[in-house]
Structure formats: C-alpha cells, structure tokens
C-alpha cells in the first residue's frame, strides 16, 4: 500500500484512505460470512442451547415427560452426585499423570532429536506415526497388548522376570488407570516432543557457544538457557495437552465402556445424554465440564502473564 502513496494534499488523502478502509471492512466481513455462519450454527448456538437445557428437565424421548423449566435443580443434583465427583477426580488424575509424563518424556526426546545425527529426518517421521493413527485404533492395539492371557506385555514381563505371573491390567481397578494412561502417553508423547523440538530449533546456536566459552556446563546450559528460552513453547504445549486430556473420551470408552468406577467427565456426560436420554441433566454436566476447563485456561493464562513480566 505504501507504494501507492504519492504526495497529495493531506485532507484528500485521508478521505481516500477512509474510503479504502471502509471498502476493506466491507469485503473482509463479506468473506467471513460463510465461516461465521457455520461457527454460529454448529458451536455458538448449541452452546447457548446447552446452557438453556441445563435449566430444564428435558428428556430425549419427549412425550414421556413434558419439558419444564426447573431452575437450578439439575445443578443441585449435580453437586451431590457422587458418580460425577468420582468422574472429575478420575479425569484430573488422568490429566496430571499423562501431561507430566508426556512433558518430561517429550522434552527428553526433543533434546535427543535436536542434536544432529544421521537419520534425524527418519526419526522425526517415525515420531509422527503414533500421532496420525486414530485414538480408538491405538486403544485397541494396546488392549490386545495388555490382554491378560495372550498379551505381549505380560509375556515380556514374565520372561524378563519383572512380573511373577500374568496380570489383568485393564480389569484390575488398581492398574486400570495406569493402563489407559499408557495408551495416551504412547500416542501423544512423540507429538509433544515435536512441538518442543520446534521451539528448540528457534533458539540460536551462538547463545550456547557464548555460554560454553564462559565455561558453563551442559547441565547449566540446559537450566539457564534452554528451559527459559523454551518457556513459551512449553506453556502452549502444556495448555493444549491439558485441555485435551480433560475432555478424554475415546480410550476410556474402548477400554471400559461406561464401567462406573472408571468414568471420566466426558464418558459420564455422554452416557447420561445418549445412553439414558437425560438431555437436561446432561446439559448441566456439560456446563460444569466447560467451567472446569475454563478454570484451567484462566490458571494457565494468568501464569503465562505472570512469568512474562
């Protein structure tokens, strides 16, 4: 646009620019109409509708009971709903375990792959593979690997004398959460590593050169240079992973169906709405999930602001 700007009387130029601006605004919004219409129709309207439904006793099969406004009844029930409380605890446990494992393992892998070696391109390609496959498929693969009789995990464990006998990893309540976490960690760690790797590659090499000239050890370089400079990439990765983990559905659904002791928030909500047809109560659960996730977003964002200052 600057190349068009030729010396001209100031007032006229300003008028022309505002005219251009108005034109740009009009065309810009026109081009956005289809996308905004879709987003409004499939996301924003349903979100409003969910909030409304959460104040009603709506059932999916209408006609059994007429839909009525029930005020805060659903939320009151939800507050005392121990199944939901267990689901929240289960989901948060899952989130903390998977996100911390994925972060630490992902960072180690990223650091290893960041050093130049033969076959680095192949390595990066290999790391994309677990990310590309459907979660449901990954869950099925692991369900078979963790089979209590013919599973390879038990076989290897017994052969290597880590286990004394085969173990029912998925059905035993003591290990079921660990089993689900293993699938998620396997599927997502490489992806976390790739995101962190992208962050590592932005750090200029001469910073490290300067540090080693000054006699900083590799260990010091890691804590004083790598981690601080990687902080933006780390925070974004953690946010994305946390939000993803909080709405986990697929792995739990494949492993347990809706076994009551292993439900997550999303599993409980889905089975309330689709399984039992309690749309109103399910909507209240949805709103609660939405708020819980929002709380995490706010925590992360304020943390980001604080550390940036």
């Amino acid at each position: 646009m600057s190349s068009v700007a030729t010396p001209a009387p100031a007032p006229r130029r300003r008028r022309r620019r505002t005219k251009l601006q108005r034109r740009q605004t009009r065309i810009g919004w026109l081009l956005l109409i289809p996308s905004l219409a879709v987003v409004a129709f499939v996301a924003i309207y349903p979100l409003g509708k969910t909030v409304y439904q959460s104040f009603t006793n709506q059932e999916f099969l209408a006609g059994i009971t007429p839909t009525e406004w029930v005020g805060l009844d659903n939320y009151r029930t939800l507050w005392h709903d121990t199944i939901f409380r267990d689901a929240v605890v289960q989901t948060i446990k899952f989130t903390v375990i998977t996100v911390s494992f994925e972060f630490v393992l992902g960072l180690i892998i990223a650091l290893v792959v960041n050093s130049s070696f033969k076959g680095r391109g192949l390595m990066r390609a290999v790391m994309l593979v677990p990310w590309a496959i459907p979660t449901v498929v990954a869950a099925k693969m692991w369900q078979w690997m963790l089979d209590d009789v013919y599973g390879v995990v038990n076989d290897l464990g017994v052969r290597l004398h880590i286990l004394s006998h085969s173990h029912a990893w998925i059905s035993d309540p003591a290990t079921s959460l660990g089993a689900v976490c293993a699938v998620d960690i396997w599927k997502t760690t490489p992806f976390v590593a790739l995101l962190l790797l992208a962050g590592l590659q932005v750090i200029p090499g001469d910073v490290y050169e300067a540090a080693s000239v000054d006699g900083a050890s590799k260990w010091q370089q890691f804590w004083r240079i790598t981690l601080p400079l990687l902080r933006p990439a780390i925070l974004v990765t953690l946010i994305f992973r946390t939000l993803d983990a909080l709405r986990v559905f697929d792995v739990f659904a494949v492993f347990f169906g809706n076994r009551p002791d292993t439900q997550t928030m999303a599993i409980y909500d889905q089975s309330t709405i689709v399984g039992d047809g309690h749309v109103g109560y399910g909507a209240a659960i949805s709103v609660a999930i939405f708020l819980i996730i929002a709380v995490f977003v706010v925590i992360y964002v304020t943390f980001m602001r604080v550390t940036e200052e």
Partner: protein
Amino acid sequence: MSTAAEATRSAARPVSRGHWLRRSPLGRALVKLPFWLLIALIFIYALFPFYWAVRSAITPDAQLFTTPIHYWPSHPTLSNFREALSTSFFRKALLNSTIVAGSVTLVSLAIGSVAAYALGRFRFRGRSAVMYLMLSMTIFPQIAILGALYTMISDFHLYDRLGALILTYLIFTLPFTIWVLTSFMRALPGDLEEAAYVDGATPLQVFYKVLLPLIAPGLVTTGLLAFIAAWNEYLYAVSFIQTPGRYTVPIAITSFTARGGNAFQVPWGQIMAATVIVTLPLIAATLILQRRILAGLTAGAVKG
C-alpha cells in the same frame, strides 16, 4: 607424549572431560553408545505397537491364542485381512469415513480459505476479535455441546445419517483450517495483489487467481490435518450413528465380534488386520508429507 599434550590442552580448556575417549574410533563409539541406545529405545517405543498389530494380523488364530506367545508366526497368513474385509460393516465404514472426512475437508477448505483471505490480507475493524474467536474454537470441548447437538440433529432428521457427522465435524476442522491458512496467507509478500488490482481485478479474482495457487501447499497440509481429525473422531460418531451400515471406521474397529467357533473369544486377529488396513494410508500420507505437516502443526500450536 600424548599425555603431556593432553595435560596442556585440558589446562587450556577446562571443558575437555572425556577427551582421551574421543581419540580412537572405538572410544568415540563408546561415548556415543548411550546416545544411540536412547535413539533405539525411542524408535522401538514408537513402533513396537505397530509391529505387534502387523504380527497379530498375519498370525493364524490357532497360533494367536496359544501360550507361550510367538513373536513371529511360523505360518503367516492373510486370512485375517480377508475376514476383516469381508465383514460388511467394516467395508462400509471405510467408504463412510472417506465420504465424511472428505466432505468435511472440502467444505472446511472452501469456506475456510475465503475467511483466511479476509483475515490474512485485509485490515479491518473486528479482525483480531474474529481471530480470537477462531483460536478459542480450536480448544472448544466438543463434549460441552453434545446434548444440544443431539437434539438439533434429531430435530433436523439427521440422526443416524452421515450428514450429522459432516455438519458437526466442522466445529473442529473449520476454525483450525482458518487459523492455519491465515498464517499461510500472512506469510505471502505484502505487495503481491497490487499489480492485479492495478489491472482491474476484483478481490475475488485476486483470491483465486493469485493467492490460492501460492498457498496450495498450505491447502494440502491443512486438508490432510483436517481429514485425519475427521477420520479419527469417535465421540460424535458413536453418539449420532446407530445402524451398522453407517458406522465410521472408529466405531467399526470397536464392533468386531466373533463369528462361529468360540463365541467368547474376541477376534483379535481380524481386529488387528482392520487396524493395519485403516492406519496404513494415514501413515503413508503422513510420511510423504511429514515436513509440511510439522510446519502446519507448529503454525497451529506454537504461534498461538
């Protein structure tokens, strides 16, 4: 002599620990050994489940369900693949998922690229608000609107139809497409359109004659990412689809049951064959386009 040289050198540079090891090729290999072990470990960790799926898919049932386990079948067979592909709901699922993921991708690219054009090449009020809206949509929890969508879909008589999925999958593919394509649009040089405007082209002509060809690589990457996301979706699929003939791939994978023989034994051989069938195209596409995918993913995530 060498020790004297070593001593002076290490006096000059304090960071030369392990220098004597780096002298000989063997010593160098020894220093590198833990590194390569780590690489090998990562490699095995990432790929072993696939190896196991392939191994189980080509193992005949008689060997699959025996202990001790065979790590490679003595008589590999393709019968599991034949069985899986002869299962009608699985064959239909491959078609259904292609239809759903393909349509969602095309619609997202068509209207998303236009939106990205507006957001990437125009300056106007409210632009950054729209960008924030799209960004927040990419982290929108789909479960939060399940009930509302469920009732809407039944009101529109879309329940148990692929249309329900095509419509609802736009929630996650469209904002993502817009976000990534906008970053591609912005990366193009600033005065690109001016020549075309001087020649009297309209904004739409500039869009599809000048800009669209230039971001073609971006369209391929974004399209593939949207396709994979739609192909992998499970929550909405399992909520809105009921008839086996309309299953998508993720539902089909979880629906294999034993036929004949031992009715209680899960047909793991067939399931693993199906697993291999549905993941091979994805893996192939990912490996071919890996550089671009990485660029797209990091544009979608890190720059956020």
